[in-house]
């Protein structure tokens, strides 16, 4: 064998040896957990995008911690000598993180959807509560504190609705809870107040029945004023012929006790005088016989009991008069109708026509049912 062949064989052998060594080096280097960690990262990212941190915080935080553990272990293993690295733990943590992220993603979707559904029902229910409050109490004198609570509750509901529209369901829920609390407690205390007022309903009902019967029996006109509904009903022959909107005294709730309390009295009265032109400043007026016997008796009892001062005046000059249609309660205790309505009743009602003024012609339960 000549020298050239020898050298060639040695070079070839050396090359094969190097190749084998390189192959061995590659073979011995453990496969890095790129796929597992990438999958885990993608899953975590998807969960994060789906607000799993908010709507499914426990599994999301676990997934995050597992991912951090995978990365920390990977870094730790990378510090070891290349052939001694073991990525099994990294893969395990990454896979566990991926599973937790998927779980967080799924549960956050469900939780957000569930929260969304519950919120919309609660928002609807609070809106209905506001409608009820407005219907029952908009013209009903309430304590200023209650009015403040209602106003605050309404503002908070609007804020909750904005958060809801933005998809911030937790924030919406918090605002809504505050709103519910304010509005519900206001409703309950206002309802207790109105229930107390309506405790006289059976008496009012008797007065109404008596007035309608009288109208039927005498084939005559009679007037019923429903203070709660702000209505003036004109009956003829026991049948309701007219229905007008009535504006009342500023403090219309309750019975009139004393001059200047700006309350519209409750009871059986009769028209005692018809006034027009220079006789009244309210276009036309029908003066009623307030105070009647019952009013005077109750007033005296209150004076005797000391619930009213001896100097108190029972008042008078309660009328059904014109200049109404303002949409608010503004009189000192009278009942105001529009001038055109006054034209109608002024012509048909005569002196001695019964005028019954009640807190309500309809029971509270019925009002609440029809709210």
């Amino acid at each position, binding site marked *: 064998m000549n020298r050239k062949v020898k050298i060639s064989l040695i070079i070839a052998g050396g090359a094969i040896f190097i190749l084998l060594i390189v192959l061995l080096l590659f073979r011995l280097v453990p496969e890095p957990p790129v796929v597992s960690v990438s999958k885990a990262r993608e899953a975590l990212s998807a969960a*994060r995008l789906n607000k799993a941190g908010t709507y499914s915080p426990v599994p999301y935080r676990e997934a995050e911690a597992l991912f951090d553990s995978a990365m920390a272990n990977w870094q730790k293993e990378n510090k070891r000598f290349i052939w001694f690295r073991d990525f099994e733990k990294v893969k395990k943590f990454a896979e566990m993180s991926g599973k937790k992220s998927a779980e967080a993603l799924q549960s956050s979707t469900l939780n957000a959807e569930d929260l969304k559904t519950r919120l919309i029902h609660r928002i609807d229910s609070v809106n209905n509560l506001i409608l009820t409050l407005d219907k029952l109490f908009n013209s009903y*004198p309430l304590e200023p504190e209650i009015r403040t609570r209602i106003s605050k509750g309404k503002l908070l509901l609007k804020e909750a609705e904005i958060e809801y529209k933005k998809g911030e369901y937790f924030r919406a829920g918090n605002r809504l809870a505050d709103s519910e609390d304010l509005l519900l407690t206001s409703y309950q205390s206002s309802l207790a107040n109105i229930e107390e007022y309506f405790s006289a309903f059976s008496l009012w009902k008797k007065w109404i029945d008596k007035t309608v019967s009288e109208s039927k029996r005498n084939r005559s006109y009679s007037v019923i004023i429903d203070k709660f509904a702000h209505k003036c009903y004109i009956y003829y022959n026991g049948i309701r012929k007219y229905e007008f909107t009535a504006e009342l005294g500023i403090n219309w709730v309750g019975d009139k006790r004393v001059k200047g309390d700006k309350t519209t009295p409750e009871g059986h009265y009769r028209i005692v005088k018809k006034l027009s032109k220079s006789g009244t400043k309210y276009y036309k007026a029908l003066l009623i016989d307030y105070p009647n016997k019952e009013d005077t008796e109750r007033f005296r009892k209150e004076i005797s009991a000391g619930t009213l001062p001896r100097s108190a005046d029972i008042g008078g000059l309660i009328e059904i008069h014109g200049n109404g249609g303002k949409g608010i309660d503004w009189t000192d205790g009278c009942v105001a109708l529009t001038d055109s309505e006054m034209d109608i009743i002024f012509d048909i009602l005569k002196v001695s026509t019964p005028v019954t003024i009640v807190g309500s012609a309809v029971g509270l339960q019925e009002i609440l049912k029809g709210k």
Partner: protein
Amino acid sequence: MKNRISMGIAALMMVAILVGCGKEPVAMVDAAKAAVAAAKTAQADIYLPAEFAALQDSLDVVLTEIESQKSKLFKSFSAPKLKLDQVTAMANEVVTKTGIRKEEVKSADVGLLAELTTVMQENTGLIAKAPKGKEGQAVLEQIRAEMTEIQGSMTEAQTLVDKGAFMDAHNKVTVAKEKAVGINTELKEAIAKVKR
């Protein structure tokens, strides 16, 4: 001769290993992490949530890639380095954009507050115009209570603006303005009825 060949092989192996040993871009990683943290401090997660999520994601991708390179026999950090630069630049851009967005929301808040103040002043004037003797009326009482609450909301919104919580202030002032405008209309209608 044999010695020379062994030396040659050893030298080749060393070269191969050394060539493969790219240097881990520690400083660049720190810079990128700091830039993302700065974006969070700037409240990018509140004002630009989608951009901030993308930024976080990009950083995670690069960190995974770096670890992946570190696990290899022949490491190459040129691609992760490029991406780290991109992440840092993106983070800086998000910080700038967040500042712009914050300013936008802030000026919207300030504008809304100014408009609200005007409406509330008008409402106060309208309430004062209501004829005496009508103040006890329940609806007007409710309006007064609502105006007090709106005033409270305005103060809260101003406090939030002063604290830099422009987004929270925005919700509050939006609702308050909506309510104040509603009251304005209601009052004008009520006064028109009274004037009839």
